[in-house]
């Protein structure tokens, strides 16, 4: 790509494996398939001021990636670089400093807010932690933040259950933004909301991004929504990135067969193209037993012999577009 802003966030060969063994029995019988490879060698960068959309279906590792990136979860291998600094193994004291610069908005506004805390406490807590502000000293900032997200001083003493889903998500956004972070991970922030409310939140995020110059990782499963907010899109399948490119290009001309299947499956309000679809057959395999070779090959309409044997590597096939698929190999190997 041309001379663009430097990367604010980088994932380099990021891998996360979960051990699902529950206890003695599993160990005694030496179950083999106990390791879930939630992320495998995930590699990407997000430039300052950019919104990178991350698309994938349930269980593909999107949320794990979000949590690993902001170090809520420890990576098993690979590196996380934030603003040029390797934070993969940053100790707790550094993490506290870092978390003032990187925040997360969660999917479910019903479970991500403490039902026993008032809005003032919820939104004020990051200020207390990161700047040692007392509640009284913080109040003006809290009110200003609430007003910025479309709520106000009248809401300070209310509790989460007194709000609708859309309002709760506004509270979650206020909590994330009050410490003036540079990087915000939005993990399915509108998936639990009705469409008219979803649009309100999307517009709010767009305004805040413009005003505050935020850098976003926007995770979602709704392609229309992710495409709408993102500059670039990364598509994930069974813990691996399969395609990365500008949002407009990926949506208009997807290269990876999985991306093609995803886009073809989206029901269109225009109601056209419903019949002539390139469908991904079957269902994603279990991450406990990912297929050999390319993980997508059992569902892929173009699968070749090579795809069953060898996993394709993510590589640039045209400027600004990387794809992990043997269809774009120049020659064998």
């Amino acid at each position: 790509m041309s001379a663009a802003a430097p990367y604010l966030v980088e994932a380099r060969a990021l891998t996360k494996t979960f051990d699902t063994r529950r206890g003695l029995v599993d160990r005694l019988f030496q179950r083999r398939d106990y390791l879930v490879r939630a992320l495998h060698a995930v590699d990407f960068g997000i430039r300052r001021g950019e919104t990178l959309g991350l698309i994938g279906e349930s269980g593909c590792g999107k949320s794990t990636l979000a949590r690993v990136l902001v170090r809520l979860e420890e990576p098993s291998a690979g590196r996380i670089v934030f603003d040029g600094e390797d934070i993969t193994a940053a100790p707790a004291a550094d993490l506290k400093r870092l978390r003032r610069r990187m925040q997360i908005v969660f999917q479910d506004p019903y479970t991500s807010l403490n039902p026993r805390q008032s809005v003032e406490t919820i939104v004020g807590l990051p200020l207390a932690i990161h700047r040692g502000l007392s509640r009284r000293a913080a109040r003006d900032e809290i009110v200003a933040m609430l007003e910025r997200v479309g709520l106000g001083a009248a809401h300070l003493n209310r509790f989460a259950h007194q709000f609708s889903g859309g309002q709760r998500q506004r509270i979650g956004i206020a909590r994330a933004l009050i410490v003036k972070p540079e990087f915000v991970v939005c993990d399915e922030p509108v998936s639990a909301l009705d469409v008219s409310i979803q649009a309100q939140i999307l517009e709010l995020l767009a305004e805040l991004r413009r005003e505050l110059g935020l850098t976003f990782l926007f995770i979602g499963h709704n392609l229309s929504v992710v495409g709408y907010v993102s500059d670039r899109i990364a598509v994930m399948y069974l813990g691996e990135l399969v395609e990365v490119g500008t949002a407009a290009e990926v949506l208009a001309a997807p290269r990876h067969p999985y991306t093609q299947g995803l886009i073809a499956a989206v029901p269109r309000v225009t109601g056209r193209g419903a019949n002539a679809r390139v469908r991904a057959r079957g269902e994603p395999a279990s991450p406990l037993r990912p297929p050999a070779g390319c993980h997508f090959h059992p569902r892929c309409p173009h699968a070749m012999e090579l795809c069953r044997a060898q996993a394709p590597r993510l590589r640039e096939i045209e400027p600004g577009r990387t794809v992990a698929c043997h269809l774009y190999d120049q020659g064998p190997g």
Partner: protein
Amino acid sequence: MNPRPSSADAGTPALSIRGLRTHFRTQSGLVKAVDGVDLDVAAGECLGVVGESGSGKSATFASVLGLVRPPGRIAGGSVRYFGRELVGLAPAEMRAIRGKEIAITLQDALTCLNPALRAGEQILETLRRHRGGEGGAALREEALRMLSLVGIPEPAARLKQYPHEFSGGMRQRVMIAIALACRPRLLIADEPTSALDVTIQAQVLELLAALRRELGMTLVLITHDLGVVAEQCERVAVMYAGQIVETGPTREVIDAPRHPYTRGLIASIPRLGETRRIRPIEGQVPDLVNLPDECRFLKRCPYARAACRTRVEMTGAGSGREVRCVRADELQEVPA
């Protein structure tokens, strides 16, 4: 494929709802979840019912099936199934219709299936109730056929598995198999794909469309996704705050919505590959407790006038369309 002889139903709607009102008594007051719904579903058609949370779309069809439980009750109105009145039917009579004539699939298959019963047992349960005269072996054969019909691989092995052993898409198929076990003439699918990923959603929708063609089934598709309606349904009914606000042929309603809520809904959806700005509907759905007798969209409507402060009825808008808006005719001229 349908064993039932086709009766002289031609012209009689599969479902005819008139003035349906379903109320829930709550601590904060009476919630009029369904408040005067009129709706016809022609035999063999696919009707989409669109609306957001609390619009009354699920409550309407729970009422149709007699599934409303206290503190809820049907406060008035009529529901006719091929001409036969269902409201006020004795529980035993309703049970004979439910499952056999009219079946429903619910959004969350995980909570709707019995976790302690094998999938096969849950299909057999329905078959035994309505086709108990046939032998056990014949019914098991039928259960097997239903599982393969909904596209579940290795159905014989799957019959013996419990719901937790199925993926979300497969569970939804099991629920559809149960609903279809007795070849209902009317299937109400309540958000059949909302919990599913998009590639699986496409497969389930394709399955429903194929079954509809093969079994000649009437389908009501309840959803919040206008894209799903656009691709699957000939007609659509848009619900808002317990009332239908617009009905008509899907294509026409989506291309030229007449009700300001329908307009707002369409303008607030990002479309794949289009960069046009979305326009959210401001405000929130009104509290359904003690609603005044006026247009329910009033407080969020950019076109509201004093005239909207009266009870608004559905009015014909030509070519099979109806709208609940006093300004529908003038707004036709206002670009969306």
